[in-house]
Each structure stands twice: as structure tokens, then as C-alpha cells.
């Protein structure tokens, strides 16, 4: 016996050491030191929503500046800073990590696990994110980055932007990248190994599928940007010239590395939102999801194809026509699995008995808005057309229909859906629906006209536009819409804060859910499940409810044939 020998060698007798129960920390220390996936999930939600509001305020300042030509609210340098902060915040500090918030809280509950596979790694993920955000936002006290969220070289090189803002951006990409990478490995390990007995791949909830694919995409895409920003850092400070054309470097290399990450990032942001509404729609249509296998398979197909389309962001660069054609066709190919999903969602609603609760409003808005972003995406994929539309407000409109209409409406659907589970309290339906309509109208007002502004020749990322461009009306409408959108979001935030304190008590299963998280108490206890039920279908809660109903029926009626044919 190794331990005995070892102990004997040191002259000690082997003994069993008993520890007393560790004192559970209380108050804020409990949050600081927690490794519970639910608490980490809540911290993720709070942190990402703080960044969401910061990014939103930045957007509103930009909209105010652009409301009229010759706006004087901010300087060109400040405007470029706002552009960079807004894009970076929304992508790296809101949409990507908020999906990790949902994943953290919901994945273990949905697969019948008692925590994530690596709880401490999970805490590390959160704290890396938090410090990445702090490092980035600290740049507003000296000089924020001014090269956009894409930080194209040579503009982002020290010759043109010597201030530390770009370095802050590099640190943010590294820290949040590590956070996502560690988190992704954790999700993969959890989902592969810790599913409830009987939960085969074909019985896994679609949201869990989407988080699994999200994790694999992060693992595939993040190393490219990690390498790219490291090269940029050495270019800026240590005399290398990876991207510097005056010393034999190549600015196009940056674009390839950036978009090899940047395009999968889009699906990293939007696939979990697709997963959320694939859970919400069937619950409120009182109907099983239409084409479960097709939706799961299309998630995988979109992720795979998403790795092969990066240069469609580079159609106007010096690139040979054959390459342009390849990236046009690969981008087209993604439209097929995306279309499959949209048709399946509509078919899920078809012949249902749709209960109009707030989560359903947000979930049904997602396909309605995403279709517009998808169609404009196909237009942009046709590279001769892209030559007119690239880097114009048409692209701004397109990406917001995809990321706001797609991802953010999905996120709100998820919060309204799972809030009762996470807090044990219901949100106000009235405020929720009001918030939805204000957001929906505000969103379309803001971004629909931006298509036209771009078609009229308005490039993106400009702090001012000429009166002769004839886009003044579009911009005014857009600014009004953006404040309406902001107000709609504010209603929801107030609703969340109010509901957390004073909402009606929800009970375990207020929506008649299909998946396992509704089996536990609301909010769930620390260990989640005392007993993990055996999974027999993709809708375990339906099975459990049926069993309970059967058990509670008076004896004698059970064996009789049922006339209604249910």
C-alpha cells in the first residue's frame, strides 16, 4: 500500500482525519466565494446586464449625435470611442457571456446534474469576465479604443492609435476569451458526462444542444483571435511587424484571423437564443417541438458552416473572384439550416393552443425579426451587391436584426420564461407585455430605416453626415426609435427588480414546462435534485405529470379504456 509505506517511511501511523463541517460564508462573501452554478449564473446575469445598459447608453449618445446633420454633442474622437465601446461591450460583455449565464444556471438543471463538472473553473470563468470588463472600461479614464470592435490594422497599430485604449481592448479580448474558453470546456464536460439516466442525445433539451454547440464553436474560434491580438500587442510594443505593411507585414492577415473568429462569434451569440425559443415556443403552444431532430441537426450544421464563411466580411478587399464565389456559396449554404429552424418554429405554433404570455411574445418576435436579418444577410452574401452595401448603414441594420432581433429578443424570452424558476417569483405580465411592444416598435423604428440610409450612401461609423446625402429623415426616425427601444428595456429592468422583491410566488412549474428544471423547487435548492428522475423522452416533465395524474386517479379507472382517445 503506497500510502502506508509513505506514512511508515515518515514514522507516522496512518489515520483517518475527520473534518468538521465547514462554516458556510454568508452575505456578500457567499457570493464572492461561491462555486454553485446557480449563484454564478445569477452573477453572470447581473454583470452582463450592467454591461448591456452601459453599451445601450453608448448607443443612445451616438444616436443623439446623429439625430441631425452637423451634430456637436461629441467630438469625432469620442464618437469613434463610443462606436468601439458599444460594439465591444455588446458582443464580448453582453451577448456572449449572457448565454453563459443561461447555460450556467439552466444546463445542470435541464440535464439532471447537481452542478457543473468543474465548479471552481466555473467561478474562474465568471471572475475572468468581470475583470476583463473592468480592464476594458478603465480605458474611459484615459483614452478609449477608437478602431471599432474589429480593430483593423494598421489603424489599430501604435503608429496611428498610440494610446492605451487599444491595449485595454486587447486585454479584454484575452480575459473574456479565456473566460469563455474555460467556460466552454466546462459545458462540454458537463453535458457529455453528467446527464440524467436515460437522457440520450436524442432526449437532450434543444437549449442544451445549443449550449453544447456554442461551447464547441467557442473552442474552435477563440484561439484565432487570441493569437491575433497577441500579435497586435507585440506589433504595438515589441517591434514586430505582423500587420505593418511598411515593414513587410500584411494588414489582410489581421482581417482573416479576426473574421475566422468573428463570424463563428455571430453563431455563438445567436444559436443559444435559438435554443431558448426552441424551449419556450412548445411550452406556450402546448405542443411538442416540431422536428426535434431537424432543429438539433441544423444547429450543428449552422455551426460547422459558420466556420467556413469568414471572408464574406472581406468582399471589398483585394481578393480573387474565385475566393469571393466560394464565400458567397458557403454563406448561402447557411441559409438552408437557418430556414429549417424558422419553418420548424412556425410549424410548432401551427395547430397549437397558444397561450399569450410575455415569454411567448419575445419568442415569437425572434423568427419574425430574424427573417429580416436573414434575408438581408443573403443579399449581403451576393458579393456584387455587397460592394454597394458593405460598411454602410445597411450592414448596421442587418447585424442589429440578427443580434438584437435574434439574440436579444431570445434573451428576453429566456429571462421572462426562467425568472420564476430562478427567483421563485412571477414577473408582472402587464409590464412585460408593455415592455415587449415598446421594444418591438422602437427596435423596428430604429433599424428598418437604416437599410434605406445605407442604400442612399451613408457609411457606418461616421460621427457626422452631410445634408446633401439626404439621410436626415432616416436618422431622426432612427434616433426617436432608439429612445423608445431604450425605454422598453427600462420597463423590463424595473419589472425584473420589482418582481425579484414583490412578485407573486411562482411555485415549481408555473408554465407547465416540459423540461427537468421545472421538477425542482423555485428557486432550486443548493444540490438541485434529491432524486434524479429517469428520463424517457425529450419532455420528461410531461411524463412525470402523466404518472402523477395516473397515480392520483382512483383505483379501477386506470385500466379502463379512455373514450376521449388521449
Amino acid at each position, binding site marked *: 500500500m503506497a500510502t502506508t509505506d509513505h506514512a511508515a517511511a515518515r514514522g507516522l501511523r496512518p489515520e483517518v482525519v475527520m473534518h468538521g463541517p465547514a462554516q458556510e460564508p454568508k452575505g456578500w462573501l457567499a457570493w464572492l466565494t461561491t462555486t454553485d452554478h446557480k449563484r454564478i449564473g445569477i452573477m453572470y446575469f447581473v454583470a452582463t446586464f450592467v454591461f448591456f445598459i452601459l453599451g445601450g447608453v453608448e448607443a443612445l449618445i451616438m444616436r443623439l449625435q446623429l439625430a441631425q446633420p452637423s451634430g456637436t454633442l461629441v467630438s469625432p474622437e469620442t464618437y469613434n470611442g463610443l462606436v468601439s465601446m458599444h460594439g465591444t461591450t455588446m458582443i464580448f460583455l453582453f451577448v456572449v457571456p449572457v448565454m453563459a449565464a443561461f447555460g450556467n444556471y439552466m444546463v445542470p438543471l435541464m440535464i439532471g446534474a447537481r452542478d457543473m463538472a468543474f465548479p471552481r473553473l466555473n467561478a474562474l470563468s465568471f471572475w475572468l469576465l468581470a475583470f476583463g470588463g473592468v480592464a476594458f472600461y478603465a480605458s474611459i479614464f484615459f483614452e478609449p479604443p477608437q478602431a471599432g470592435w474589429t480593430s483593423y490594422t494598421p489603424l489599430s497599430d501604435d503608429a496611428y492609435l498610440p494610446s492605451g485604449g487599444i491595449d485595454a481592448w486587447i486585454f479584454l479580448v484575452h480575459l473574456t476569451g479565456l473566460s469563455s474558453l474555460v467556460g466552454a470546456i466546462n459545458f462540454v464536460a458537463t453535458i457529455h458526462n453528467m446527464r440524467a439516466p436515460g437522457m440520450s442525445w436524442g432526449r437532450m433539451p434543444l437549449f442544451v444542444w445549443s449550449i453544447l454547440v456554442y461551447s464547441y464553436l467557442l473552442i474552435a474560434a477563440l484561439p484565432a483571435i487570441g493569437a491575433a491580438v497577441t500579435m497586435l500587442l507585440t506589433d504595438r510594443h515589441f517591434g514586430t511587424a505582423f500587420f505593418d505593411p511598411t515593414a513587410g507585414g500584411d494588414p489582410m492577415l489581421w482581417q482573416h484571423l479576426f473574421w475566422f473568429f468573428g463570424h463563428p462569434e455571430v453563431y455563438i451569440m445567436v444559436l443559444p437564443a435559438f435554443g431558448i425559443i426552441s424551449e419556450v415556443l412548445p411550452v406556450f403552444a402546448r405542443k411538442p417541438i416540431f422536428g426535434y431532430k431537424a432543429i438539433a441537426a441544423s444547429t450543428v450544421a449552422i455551426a460547422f458552416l459558420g466556420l467556413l464563411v469568414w471572408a464574406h466580411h472581406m468582399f471589398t478587399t483585394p481578393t480573387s473572384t474565385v475566393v469571393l464565389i466560394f464565400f458567397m456559396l458557403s454563406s448561402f449554404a447557411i441559409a438552408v439550416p437557418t430556414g429549417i429552424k424558422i419553418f420548424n418554429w412556425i410549424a410548432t405554433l401551427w*395547430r397549437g393552443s397558444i397561450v399569450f404570455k410575455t415569454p411567448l411574445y419575445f419568442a415569437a418576435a425572434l423568427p419574425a425579426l430574424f427573417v429580416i436579418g436573414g434575408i438581408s444577410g443573403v443579399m449581403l452574401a451576393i458579393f456584387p451587391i455587397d460592394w454597394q452595401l458593405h460598411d454602410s448603414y445597411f450592414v448596421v441594420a442587418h447585424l442589429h436584426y440578427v443580434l438584437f432581433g435574434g439574440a436579444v429578443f431570445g434573451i428576453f424570452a429566456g429571462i421572462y420564461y426562467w425568472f420564476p424558476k430562478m427567483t421563485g417569483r412571477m414577473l408582472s405580465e402587464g409590464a412585460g407585455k408593455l415592455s415587449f411592444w415598446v421594444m418591438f416598435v422602437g427596435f423596428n423604428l430604429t433599424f428598418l430605416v437604416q437599410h434605406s440610409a445605407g442604400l442612399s450612401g451613408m457609411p457606418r461609423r461616421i460621427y457626422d453626415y452631410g445634408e446633401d446625402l439626404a439621410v436626415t429623415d432616416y436618422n431622426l426616425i432612427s434616433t426617436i426609435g432608439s429612445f423608445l427601444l431604450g425605454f422598453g428595456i427600462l420597463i423590463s429592468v424595473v419589472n425584473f427588480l420589482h418582481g425579484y422583491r414583490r412578485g407573486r410566488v411562482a411555485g415549481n412549474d408555473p408554465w407547465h414546462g416540459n423540461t427537468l428544471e421545472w421538477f425542482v423547487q423555485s428557486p432550486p435548492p443548493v444540490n438541485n435534485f434529491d432524486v434524479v428522475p429517469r428520463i424517457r423522452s425529450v419532455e420528461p416533465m410531461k411524463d412525470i405529470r402523466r404518472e402523477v395524474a395516473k397515480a392520483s386517479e382512483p383505483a379501477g379507472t386506470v385500466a379502463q379504456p379512455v373514450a376521449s382517445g388521449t
Partner: protein
Amino acid sequence: MIPRALHPPRSDSRRRTALIALAAALALMLLAAPLATADLLTPESGPSPNANAIDSLYKIVLYVAIAIFVVVEGTLLWSLVKYRARRGGPEAAQIHGNTPLELGWTVGAALILVVLTAVTFIYLGDVQNPPDSGPGGVAESVEVATIDQPDPPGGRDAALEIDVNGQQFVWRYDYPNGMFDYHELVVPIDTTVVLSLTASDVIHSWWIPKLGGKMDAVPGYVNKTWFKVTEPGVFQGQCAELCGSGHADMRARVRAVQPEQYTAYLERHERELEQSREGLAEQREQREQSQSEIQ
């Protein structure tokens, strides 16, 4: 056993009115669509064949897009209205899928994309390849090298090649005769103008919406685009790639004039340039002289 949160609402009438209003608004939007496509929803075009080819291709895609949009949004809205929960209404049909239907819409979506690919290839040549200069063009009167053409330079169908260099925050135009300018690009009408784009600091992007799509000017690379203006006029554009604090003010201007005016402009400008060169040389000489005197 239905939880309280799931009870269907008591009154449907208000929602029905709202939905009817919504449907009416949508119908109105669709009616407005053909009107809107006139200009609101299409790219700039008119003076140059490449911009016109993009515009035609875009319109075909837009019609397909509108059809898809109407079908998808219509089915979605119809499903939401028709199958909302009502007391005593039908139970939700417990359907898990329908393989022929799912295969059908997969193939259908793929077919639409095949059609779009074919249409793109039909128009690609017109957008990408510069045509010959017209009979009235001045390309032959200037010594130029053609792109993609085996004919000796200076032929009737040659193109006028101009080097464009993006710099924070102006464009420099280099004409074939060695003349250059930062103010505006003057070109003769009826002449195919091929632009060789590059940049000397950061990446810029050349975009005159009415004269076709944009092309990036990347330091270390030469990117090509072209246009051919049919009518005299002034066409405005601006840099389309974030290039620093003056990005929004980096305007580009193309003035298309009659061929005679173009040659006159070049001559005048060349004379002016020569004069200023001579003036500068004189000043320099004077300065050198005075410096040598001091020494």
C-alpha cells in the same frame, strides 16, 4: 389542474381588434412595397453601367426576398392569431414532425439559393468587367495601359487608368500624364475609367454610390474598380472604412465632363502645376543663394 398563470384571457375582443389592425398595417406595408422599391429600398444607380448592373441584380433578389418575407411573416402571424388558446377551443395537436414536409422546405430553400446563384453569375460580368470606352471617349488620346486587354495601349477601346491613393483624410488622384490632384477626380464622359486603389497609411475604402460598389484601398495592395459615366455631372462619395478621427470628413468627388473639357482641364492643370513648380524652384534658389551669402 392548469396553473393560474396559464388561464386563457377572459376577453378576446380587444386583442382581436389589435391583431386585425396589425394585419391591416402589414397589408398596407406590402401595398407600399412596389412604390418603395422605386428608391427607398434600392441602391444608387444611373450614370454608370456597373452601378446599374448591381441595381438590376439587387432588384431581382429583392423581389425574391419580398416573396419569402410575405410567406414567412404571413404564416407566422396567421398561426399566432388562428391558434391562440380559447376557452372551449380545440386542443393543441400533438404533432412531432412531418418528414416529407421538412424535406420539402429544405429542398425548396436550397432551390431558391440555386436560382440566386445563377442570377448572380448572369450579372457578375457586367458588374466586374470594364467595357470598352465609347467612340467619343478620350482614352485613346492619352497613353494608358489597359487592364485585361491584349491590344496595344492607346487603342480606341482602351480605358483611362487613374491611380487613387487614400491618405488620412484625403484622396490623391494620379493621372496617366503624371498630373495629380487632391481636390477632385475629373474624368471624361463615355470613357471607361479604371481606378487602381491603394493607401499610404491605414485602410480606406473608395465609394461613390452612384458610380458602383466600393473597393478597399489597402496599404501594400492594389485593388481595382471601374466606372463609365454617360452624362456630365458631379458625383459625391466618401471613405467607407473607419480610418481615424477624420473618417466622416474624408469625401471623394468625381466630376464628369465632356472629353474636350477634360483635355483642356489636364492641360491647364499641368500648366499650373508647372508654374508652381517653377515658382518653388525659384524660391529654393533664392533661399540657397541667401543662405550661401550668409555663410
